[in-house]
């Protein structure tokens, strides 16, 4: 029998898993409370989490560039972008709190690009009414993570790097009591006993073949939370970013920031046609330019001109590119042409989009100041995730909190660009504070049962100990191929069923997975451990996609091509059933708050008038 008495234990009041923007924000917020011991566990080195790749910016109604902006308009944009399926309360909290969180980041040392008056500059992005994204060139994520990192290391947080979380333990009453982890470098196990646990573990973009996500994006939080009994929500909504690199093959999927379009970049097909004018949804027709002339005026800063159609929401643009390619009007390597060279001068491009310039120069040997880029959809983001209470970030498991991409609900059926970085700050901060409150109310540490620990460790070590078995890399490749083909950007019933069957087949192969080598820094072993979580995430995606018989936001069913009103009343939930199999259920949505409902459904003219009045009232008070 496995002896666990030698395994090191550390006690925390609040333990955060994941050190991207959300995890660091949560840990910093929690550590502001005296006598609260905070830990932070990350799979990579500190400062390397996926946040570092975010490019465009963080959305917040600061009103520095266009003073007509207000939380109400940001909220309306977010709800419309999410096709009204967002968690109303989360979208409200997000829009209201984002400006304060961005300012806080600046006070911690972030150096944003400036306006002429020396304030934080803001740029245009898809679905945002005004220039709203605080940014630093096209490396905003790096600025964010470095600022949080350099601030966080002085807050007394106990940081454990290159440490993989395996599974949660709960006490007999069902409360979170701890989590068993493994140091990647040595293979040594560790038990973290904790009163509360915050998952800031990101998404599961590695389920697809073409993805902008790094190896870390294996749905660890979804898998562990699901196994612990938490519910997953909105898992059918997977954002395919319209512009990933498509050539050469080895870089397929790497992100090309929406900032390119925000700075004026246009999309063309192989016939040289600017095709986005043909794809303007009725709902957005009032607010979108319908001629190239008007779009050009907008780019020059004419406040009366409407936004170019390239800046429609990501779901719309991704589908449009997909349609053009399928109709035989794709670029040489099966994408669309994204052209900034004819829209801005070389100096501006290099200044505003330095890392795009560098990325294409090195990886594709292409000069974006002279030639158009080739781009196509790439899996980018999970709108869905672990279901949380909007005001506390607590999941359906007591003591387990979730924030950032790991949590679901905030973005509904489609996320607006720039709303992710602000989400990380807002809900990272909220979950950190709420976890502290929860932990303070617990007098003693919930008990970690030895039996649970042994089970978790046995599951991990059996992958190494079996004589022979299946190659984890190849199972992963098969999963990615199937998800790409069967549960990709355009879905049908037949293909999704094929996808579910493949997942079932791979689940049985996984039972006999084998990693050769020792427990020390063994990527094959790490890959095998992550596979369980990838499979759970993919199963939840496929089953939810099958159940939702409509097209809404990022979820497109070819066999049900339109939004269906009856489906607006439901979210889809996945949870572990009593028989151990995944249950996929429709859950009736709460009625929206009347005031929020009014704001989200106001016409833009009405709301702008109202905001103007609000601002005038505020000014007269000052």
């Amino acid at each position, binding site marked *: 029998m496995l002896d666990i008495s030698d395994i090191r234990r550390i006690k925390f009041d609040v333990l955060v898993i994941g050190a991207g923007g959300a995890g660091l924000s949560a840990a910093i917020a929690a550590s502001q409370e005296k006598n609260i011991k905070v830990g932070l566990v990350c799979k990579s080195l500190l400062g390397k989490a996926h946040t570092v790749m975010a490019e465009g910016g963080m959305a917040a109604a600061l009103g520095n560039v266009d003073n007509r902006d207000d939380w109400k308009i940001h909220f309306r944009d977010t709800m419309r972008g999410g096709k009204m399926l967002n968690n109303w309360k989360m979208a409200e909290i997000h829009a209201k709190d984002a400006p304060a969180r961005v300012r806080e980041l600046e006070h911690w040392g972030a*150096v944003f690009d400036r306006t002429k008056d020396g304030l934080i500059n803001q740029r245009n992005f898809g679905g945002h009414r005004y220039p709203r994204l605080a940014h630093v060139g096209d490396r905003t994520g790096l600025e964010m993570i470095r600022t949080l990192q350099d601030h966080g290391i002085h807050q007394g947080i106990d940081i454990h790097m290159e440490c993989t979380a395996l599974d949660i333990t709960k006490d007999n009453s069902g409360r979170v009591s701890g989590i068993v982890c493994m140091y990647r470098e040595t293979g040594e196990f560790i038990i973290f006993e904790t009163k509360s646990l915050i998952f800031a573990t990101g998404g599961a973009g590695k389920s697809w073949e073409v993805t902008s996500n*790094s190896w870390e994006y294996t749905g660890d939080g979804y898998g562990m939370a699901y196994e612990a009994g938490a519910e997953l929500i909105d898992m059918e909504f997977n954002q395919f970013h319209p512009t990933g690199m498509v050539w050469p093959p080895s870089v397929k999927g790497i*992100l090309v920031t929406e900032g390119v379009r925000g700075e004026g970049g246009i999309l063309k097909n192989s016939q040289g046609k600017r095709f986005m004018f043909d794809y303007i949804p009725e709902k957005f027709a009032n607010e979108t330019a319908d001629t190239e002339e008007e779009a050009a005026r907008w780019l020059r800063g004419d406040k009366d001109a409407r936004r170019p159609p390239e800046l429609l929401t990501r779901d719309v643009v991704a589908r449009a590119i997909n349609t053009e390619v399928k109709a035989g009007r794709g670029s040489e390597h099966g994408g669309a042409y994204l052209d900034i060279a004819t829209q801005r001068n070389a100096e501006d491009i290099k200044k505003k989009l330095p890392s795009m310039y560098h990325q294409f120069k090195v990886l594709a040997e292409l000069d974006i100041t002279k030639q158009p880029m080739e781009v196509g959809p790439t899996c980018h983001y999970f709108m869905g995730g672990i279901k949380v209470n909007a005001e506390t970030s607590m999941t359906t498991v007591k003591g387990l909190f979730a924030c950032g991409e790991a949590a679901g609900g905030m973005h509904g059926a489609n996320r607006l660009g720039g709303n992710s970085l602000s989400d990380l700050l807002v809900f990272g901060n909220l979950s950190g504070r709420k976890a502290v409150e929860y932990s303070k109310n617990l007098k003693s540490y919930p008990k970690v049962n030895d039996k649970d620990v042994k089970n978790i460790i046995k599951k991990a070590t059996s992958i190494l100990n079996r004589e022979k078995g299946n190659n984890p890399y190849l199972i992963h490749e098969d999963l990615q191929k199937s998800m790409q083909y069967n549960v990709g950007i355009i879905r049908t019933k037949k293909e999704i069923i094929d996808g579910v069957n493949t997942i079932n087949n791979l689940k049985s192969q996984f039972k006999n997975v084998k990693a050769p080598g020792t427990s020390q820094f063994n990527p094959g072993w790490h890959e095998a451990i992550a596979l369980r979580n990838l499979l759970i995430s993919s199963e939840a995606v496929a089953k939810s996609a099958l159940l939702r018989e409509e097209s809404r936001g990022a979820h497109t069913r070819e066999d049900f091509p339109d939004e269906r009103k009856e489906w607006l009343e439901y979210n889809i939930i996945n949870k572990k059933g009593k028989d151990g199999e995944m249950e996929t259920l429709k859950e009736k949505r709460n009625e929206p708050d009347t005031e929020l409902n009014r704001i989200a459904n106001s016409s833009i003219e009405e709301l702008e008038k109202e905001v103007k009045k609000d601002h005038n009232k505020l000014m007269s008070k000052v």
Partner: protein
Amino acid sequence: MKDRDFKIYRGDNERGELVNYKCKVTEGMVVLDVIHRIQADQANDLACRWNCKAGKCGSCSIEINGKPRLACMTRMNEFDDTEKIVITPLKSFPVLKDIVTDVSWNYEQNKKIIPFSPSKKDKEKDFVMMQKDVDRVQHFRKCIECYLCQNMCHVVRDNDGKKNFSGPRFMTRLASLEMHPMDKADRIGDIRDVHGSGMCNITRCCTEVCPEEIQITDDAIIPLKERVIDRFYDPVMIFFRKIFGKN
């Protein structure tokens, strides 16, 4: 598609050897793609660090034919068709396994730096800073912490040097704080005594390997050295300070 020859270091800090692998190289591949292909097909347990695969996170720093590079930004077509490619870990840090090194020393250096410290009064309102005044700070903040500069620095490479010098990466970070328009902390004493600015003798090796093309030596280290000299060694300045106070 052609098979090409690779030698990759396998082992730990004490023992190890260069192991031969063959891998098919297709159009556009970078060295990190080759490592991943070998990992998936031939050596599941080959240890390698990486994250973004787009030159933004600075995780996949290794030495390729003796030169410190990011594996994700080094294209295979840089090399002659028949050239054997040798992949080894960074030399300045202890090897954990294969091409992964222990870079924890860098995190210790960072922690010694006095963090960004604006005044209480400034924090009550929005910062007003002009773009031209933050250009240089932003230039420093492009750093992705790949530690290629640390690896290349002959002072850091020497173990005794590690005790006396925080290395070019953290000189750059110190410069970004010192030149931040809203920062109020005084780090000049630390820059000399804790971070060892005097150890650098301006060979510019760090600047040459920086994938972000940060002018580490000219824009960060030399200005910091000048500030130290003004504070501690300039007799005129010392005289003025005695009369008029510290600032």
